[in-house]
């Protein structure tokens, strides 16, 4: 009996140690140009000094899944290790002609469109591998977009904890309430990844959510 209690005690200690050292796979999902990479960059820069990827006004700048491993986030004396996974924005259509409006040459636009479609396929495949997901939405856009609903539906079905970030709150058209009323069952944090607004609240939520992993 005493041996069994001792074994359980040791087991609990070890499982706690490993849980704390475990790298949590934190995915950044959302539609194109919502600011996924900007947010991931800000976090990575704060804690590793390096960015995860490049950002641009042209949609589908991120066309491959990008990683940053062993990102140790310290917040109010607590530390957690994350593997940051920045994914290409998910869309239901890609037209190379849309890139021409950004003065991209036709050949380059076609190549960008081809890579963007592959990136979306890759993003969808990665959904099931995440431990936790931050869905980044542009708070100046209509949230009732089927892509957002499909992403969230897949995360619910896989029981993956989710945090919604309503990004771009620095813009006049930003409307966080619209996002909150579209997804009332989720925690929504208004942020500006560009200026780093509300990062404290974001880390607080990430740490709280990580307990569900």
């Amino acid at each position: 009996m005493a041996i069994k209690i001792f074994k359980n005690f040791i087991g609990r200690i070890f499982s706690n140690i490993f849980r704390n050292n475990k790298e949590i796979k934190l995915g950044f999902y959302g539609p194109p140009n919502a600011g996924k990479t900007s947010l991931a960059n800000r976090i990575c820069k704060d804690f590793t000094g390096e960015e995860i990827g490049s950002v641009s006004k042209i949609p589908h700048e991120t066309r491959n899944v990008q990683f940053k491993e062993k990102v140790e986030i310290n917040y109010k004396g607590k530390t957690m290790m994350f593997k940051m996974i920045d994914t290409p924005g998910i869309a239901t259509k890609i037209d190379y002609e849309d890139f021409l409006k950004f003065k991209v040459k036709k050949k380059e636009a076609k190549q960008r469109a081809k890579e963007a479609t592959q990136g979306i396929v890759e993003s969808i495949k990665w959904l099931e591998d995440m431990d936790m997901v931050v869905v980044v939405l542009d708070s100046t856009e209509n949230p009732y977009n089927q892509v957002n609903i499909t992403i969230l539906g897949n995360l619910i079905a896989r029981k993956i904890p989710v945090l919604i970030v309503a990004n771009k709150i620095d813009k006049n058209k930003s409307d966080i309430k619209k996002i909150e009323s579209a997804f009332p069952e989720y925690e929504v944090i208004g942020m500006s990844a560009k200026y780093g607004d509300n990062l404290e609240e974001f880390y607080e939520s990430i740490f709280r959510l990580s307990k569900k992993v």
Partner: protein
Amino acid sequence: MANKKNLGKLKGFSIQFLPYSEIRDLNSDGRIRKILGVILGNNILILQGRLKSDEEARLIGDTMAMIGHIKNFRGIELAVISGNDDEGVFMKFKKSLANVLTGADLGAITIIGPATVVKDIKRNPKKIELLLNK
């Protein structure tokens, strides 16, 4: 699978209604094949009920993989409207019971169209607007 017409600028289109009974007994592959058959025929599909979330994601992934391989295909526009979310507990219970019995959310409607035909689907909780390409 329906004829794959040349998907180009809008010359004409048809709207096809698919009752849920048409896909109820199909597996995910069969459902997606059936839907793609309609879409690639340059039609707008109105489906009774909705796909499972993983099927919706697969539909997006499969259509993305087709871009560049099918002439003028640019992807799809997709929207699902469900019933009123503000309804009471009793109505919600009745609905979920009906969903269990039928195996589907029959109160929902799914609209899918090729992006060359449907420019945009604007939606809010109360209405849905289909904007077509000229």
